[in-house]
């Protein structure tokens, strides 16, 4: 455990070990090069900040992409309450988030625990499990998913071996969303890697002490592992939640942009996109973007408040 090999107190800092003390470069020059390195970030920010405020303004207009926007006050926000497809898109997004996030976190933690037991060729396993999260959001994988779960796909072929006639996973509105949830759970790799890093930080001596006291593996997991990695769980939870609320590609590709069958995969962001780019109601779409921001902010805030009761910071 590298974490445990702390430097003895009073040891010289590595930088000072090189003999004569050097003249420090001027603070100013340091700052300048610092800003230089930050330049790409500033440029990137420009492309974020401008649309950010533009969309805030457009949310209060009837902007339709082609003619000058007119200020309409809160009309867009009022219209949302009477928009059944918006309600449907919220429903889809919430179900997707609240089902897939807990499952994918649980799977990620489980796999991380297994990998943490010190397997041969850990780095290979880690890469193999991490790969799907790099690919999961990509168009090609969603297309592949369509085929795997298609009527003549692997899944129904497998069920067929047992004489089970599988449903139309992709085209039946009852099953289409669950197919996407499975896809999302499959991309557990990135929280898994973070869990793995967290697990390696847990000092081994706690387990030694606990096993001397006769604690079972399950008890050790509950009383040592979980509390010590709870900040990591919290971090992963927030990240997954935000990402999941913003799902777009999966729904778009799976349904060919329609959110079908029968709006069963109409994710919030997909509906926003339809409003903006196929119905040209950019003002409404902007207002929707801000509603989503508020929803995410509220859920993140709830989590932060709730975290006081279960997240344990060991310092």
């Amino acid at each position: 455990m590298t974490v445990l090999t702390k430097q003895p107190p009073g040891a010289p800092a590595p930088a000072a070990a090189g003999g004569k003390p050097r003249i420090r470069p001027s603070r100013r020059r340091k700052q300048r090069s610092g800003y230089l390195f930050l330049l790409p970030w500033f440029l990137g920010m420009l492309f974020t900040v401008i649309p950010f405020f533009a969309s805030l303004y457009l949310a209060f207009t009837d902007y339709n992409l082609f003619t000058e926007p007119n200020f309409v006050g809160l009309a867009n926000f009022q219209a949302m309450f009477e928009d059944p497809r918006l309600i449907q898109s919220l429903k889809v997004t919430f179900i997707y988030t609240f089902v897939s996030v807990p499952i994918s976190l649980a799977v990620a933690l489980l796999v991380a625990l297994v990998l943490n037991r010190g397997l041969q060729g850990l780095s290979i396993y880690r890469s193999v499990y991490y790969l799907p999260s790099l690919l999961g959001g990509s168009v090609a994988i969603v297309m592949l998913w369509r085929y795997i779960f298609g009527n003549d796909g692997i899944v129904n072929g497998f069920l067929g071996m047992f004489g089970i006639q599988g449903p139309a996973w992709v085209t039946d509105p009852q099953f289409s969303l669950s197919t996407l949830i499975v896809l999302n759970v499959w991309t557990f790799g990135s929280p898994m890697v973070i869990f793995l890093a967290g697990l390696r930080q847990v000092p081994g001596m706690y387990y030694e002490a606990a096993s001397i006291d006769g604690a079972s593996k399950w008890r050790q997991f509950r009383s040592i592992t979980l509390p010590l990695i709870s900040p990591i769980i919290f971090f992963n939870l927030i990240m997954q939640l935000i990402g999941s609320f913003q799902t777009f590609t999966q729904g778009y590709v799976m349904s060919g942009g329609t959110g079908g069958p029968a709006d069963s995969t109409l994710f919030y962001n997909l509906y926003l996109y339809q409003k903006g780019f196929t119905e040209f109601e950019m003002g409404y779409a902007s207002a929707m973007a801000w509603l989503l921001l508020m929803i995410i902010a509220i859920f993140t805030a709830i989590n932060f408040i709730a975290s006081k009761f279960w997240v344990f910071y060991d310092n």
Partner: protein
Amino acid sequence: MAAGLLLSACGGGASSSGNSGSGSNVELNFVFWGDANRAKMTEAALRIFEKKNPGITVKTEYQDSAPYADKLATRFAGGNPPDVLAMANRSLLEYAQRGTLADLKSFPELNLDKVPETTLSRGEVDGKLYGLATGVTTIGVVINKTITDQAGVTIPDDKTWSWEDYAKFATEVTQKTGGKVYGAGYDVATETGPIILARQRGEDFYTKDNKLGVSEKTIEDWFQYSVDLRKAGGYPPAGFFEQIGGSPAQSYLAKGTVASQIIPINNFRGYNEAVEGEVVLLRVPGETTGERRGYSADPTMLWSIAAKSKHPKEAAKLVDFLTNDAEGAAEVLTQRGVPINPEVADAITPKLNADDKTFVDLMAAIQEDDLPPAYVYPKGASVVADTLKQLTTEVEFGRVSPADAAKTFMEKSNAAINK
């Protein structure tokens, strides 16, 4: 979050159209949707245009129809529209009524003398012409005759067959093939089907004053027909069709799992080449058993010129070439329907292969009859199309009854059109 708006910010960046030509050399930006084959044929025609019009070069871009529609919207929004563009029937007025398209009648460069009035009316609103048909087509039934022959099912006479005949035929195919092949695999969710059914019943799906004219009953019957046919076995079970869009090669007719489909008949050649076995082209059912003819010669797509084009004159010359030049048409043939200038259509007929000839002949035979007029799709037509698609699935899986679906269809469509 703000990604949607970011998209719009960089939408126009990809192309380098505009004022690259100073004085003598003008570069036109010309965009359309389609596949590589269509692009190749179009490019060949454009080289002839450039030869005939020194000083004008044409730069093209093309995509599949869905990304094309998205990109077009962002380019117009970004103030960087193409000069000449292909437009879908259902999108024309969405653009035109926002002032983004030029009135094609205002260009002396564009000769419309030979174009029939019935074709012009499909791109016209308030006396202004915003879209000119690239060619005309309609829908028809394609049947895999090899399958029906093997099954011993006779194909009915398409000049007199009714919708009931089609259902009977389809059910028989399914029965005699032991359920291996479904008799009918037509697309319930595309509006061209109910448009014809409405016209056969004396209704205009879209009326002259740009409203929804179809009755709730017709929509209900359209849904009910597929429900009954599925129950009888002539139509595949719910969830069977999962291919989105797709070329003739990817179609279920080519896979051999259905014996008939309804297609835009300018694609007949593609289907006959993709399908193993012999494919025959038939008229849609109900043409002589209804109140009147349902057929009309419909624009396959439309050419438009952006109101903000920097080279409107040259753009008009290009549209004139695409419409009236027989040499150019000889390169494109019937890719975008039968040419709307009859002289051009006659000129290219000898150059057609057998399948394209079948299409052109059927188109001509249909137009020999007295067809009721048809009108431009209203603003909101794309919402109507989406609504139909959505409700079709609801009906397919039995989540709503055809009657309720029809009611919802009327409400949503009227709301979108009258907005």
